[in-house]
């Protein structure tokens, strides 16, 4: 039984069957990659997991509870954090504030009217945020405005914002899309570092085979909205079905 169990999920947009009977099981403390050609339904599936879309049928269970019908912030409070394709950060706020906000969210829940307290006096939250920033080597940039960071640092900051919540599951939506090779390698190193330091389950959607084979322990191949195989990376490489659906494209 995995921490995330997707069973028989269907999603249809008008005449297009985006997801057809998707089953997926992500085991605890593993890195699970979902790959597939363009339009395979990877992002649709991810959006179903975080509450942005509601599947037409099927079930999505996280940690024994259904996530269907819940809002994104409720799902986050259950322990799922999400990293976006382009880093989504609070660009107008300082780096430290960016990390303090998830700390407040974890401590105070989805809403609290803490209007008469002072941020400066929240020493616990600040220490927590600073420790996290030190962990991703960004402590010296804590007073910078987040929009002035380099793209790689923005990605790092977004990871820090997710990790400081100690999520049970970290979802990554093409974390290296549009990156140069050097940046991609940095991201891979960062993710490996994160994985080495803590127990965390990651579910990663990726196009780049280099990234997938460097990180993943299990791989699910999605094609035309249906999972073809779920295997270890070694077995995926030579799998005939995968070749046909995915790698085959390149050989034609």
């Amino acid at each position, binding site marked *: 039984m995995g921490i995330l169990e997707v069973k028989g999920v269907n999603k249809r947009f008008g005449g297009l069957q985006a997801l057809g009977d998707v089953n997926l099981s992500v085991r605890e403390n593993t890195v699970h990659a979902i790959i597939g050609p363009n339009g395979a339904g990877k992002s649709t599936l991810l959006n179903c997991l*975080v509450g942005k879309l509601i599947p037409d049928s099927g079930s999505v269970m996280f940690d024994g509870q259904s996530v269907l019908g819940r*809002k*994104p*912030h409720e799902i*986050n*409070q259950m322990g799922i*954090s*999400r990293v*976006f394709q382009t880093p*989504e*950060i*609070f*660009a*107008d*706020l300082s780096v430290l*504030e960016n990390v*303090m*906000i*998830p700390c*407040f*969210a*974890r401590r*105070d*829940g*989805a*809403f*609290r*009217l*803490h*209007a*008469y*307290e*002072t*941020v*400066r006096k*929240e020493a616990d939250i600040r220490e927590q945020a600073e420790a996290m920033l030190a962990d991703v080597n960004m402590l010296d940039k804590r007073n910078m405005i987040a929009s002035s960071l380099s793209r790689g640092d923005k990605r790092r900051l977004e990871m820090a*914002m997710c990790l400081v*919540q100690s999520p049970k599951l970290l979802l990554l939506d093409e974390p290296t899309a549009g990156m140069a090779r050097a940046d991609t390698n940095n991201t891979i190193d960062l993710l490996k570092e994160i994985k080495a330091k803590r127990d965390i389950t990651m579910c990663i959607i990726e196009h780049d085979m280099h990234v997938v084979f460097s990180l993943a322990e299990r791989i699910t191949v999605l094609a035309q909205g249906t999972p073809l195989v779920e295997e270890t990376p070694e077995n995926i490489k030579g799998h005939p079905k995968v070749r046909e659906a995915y790698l085959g494209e390149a050989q034609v």
Partner: protein
Amino acid sequence: MLGLERKDTLLMFAVAFITLLAPIILNPFPAGSALAQFNAGYPDLMQRFVIFGIFAIGFNILFGLTGYLSFGHAAFLGIGSYSAVWMFKLLSMNVIPAILLSIIMAGLFALVIGFVSLRRSGIYFSILTLAFAQMSYNLAYSVLTPVTNGETGLQLTLSDPRILDGASSGGLPVTSLFGAEMRDTTTLYVGPWTWDFSVGYYFCALLMLIAFYLSVRIFRSPFGMMLRAVKSNQQRMNYTGLNSRPYTLAAFVISGMYAGLAGGLLAAMDPLAGADRMQWTASGEVVLMTILGGAGTLIGPVLGAGFIKYFENIFSKINDGILHQWFAFMPDGLENFMVTVIHPFIGKGWHLTLGIMFMLVVIFLPGGLVEGAQRTGRLFRRRDRNADHVESDAARQRAAAE
């Protein structure tokens, strides 16, 4: 001090100092001198400064922090005024219950209007709030005449019950704070200067200082940080486990209550409430004040409010006769020419001057008057900071050498 950082405490004291000494500071020109018309230190105008200051401070909590641009905040101003006048009619001429009811009623209306309007963001939110405000205006103007007294406006009458005050003898009673009449003014004559200290002004000023203090607290609180997060990236906020809806609604209600307080104070200074207080131009005015002063800054809205009210009351009073006096030293032709050129910008044309000022500020100082002040400050400080650099570099070299 006061639970604030040093910088904010200083700002708080500066604002308190200026507000409390405003009757002196705003009357720099001796009475009777040619420049006396630029004096703003008379109670009626000073009250407007601080009351609209409160209005703008509250508006800034919503617009400056969350970025939600409400075009209907005058509705809460009007609701505050009507509530206060009803309290004067039914209960007592004491301003305290009147103002409390203003704040509560405005808060309740803000809760309902905010709940509906905040389902949308951006331009749609603005349009929804504008629609609500116009509905309120029209209700007050015609449909709800029994409550609002329609286009005449709600006024005190001799036949009002005023349960706590008992029967009034003679003319209409005046608003008071436990016996201290709001219109009471002590005039001080110092040499050629005259300074008016009025009870009403100091009552409003005190409430503005409290309102300002609370807004500083909100700006520096975790709640304020969340509101800035709403403005910055709502998507990330929701995926960080925070529900942005109640945060924006709370900000909307708080700013509505500030507007209600301002409306209540307007009625407390002059117990009369008309529907035109709710018109969309009044909503637009507070937007202008906030942007002109600097949205999202602490002091900006107060500056903007003072600036606009000053123009409205001082520039609009300059007429051609006064211009002729000013340019009397010039040859006749030139004098008439100057008067003709300046004529459109004064008197009834003060909006033109204000419009040009507003355009200049938005184009050259997007951060409002506050940004202007900061830039000026930096200009003077630049040399010092360079000196600092040199010194610290030298210190580092010395340390390295040792």
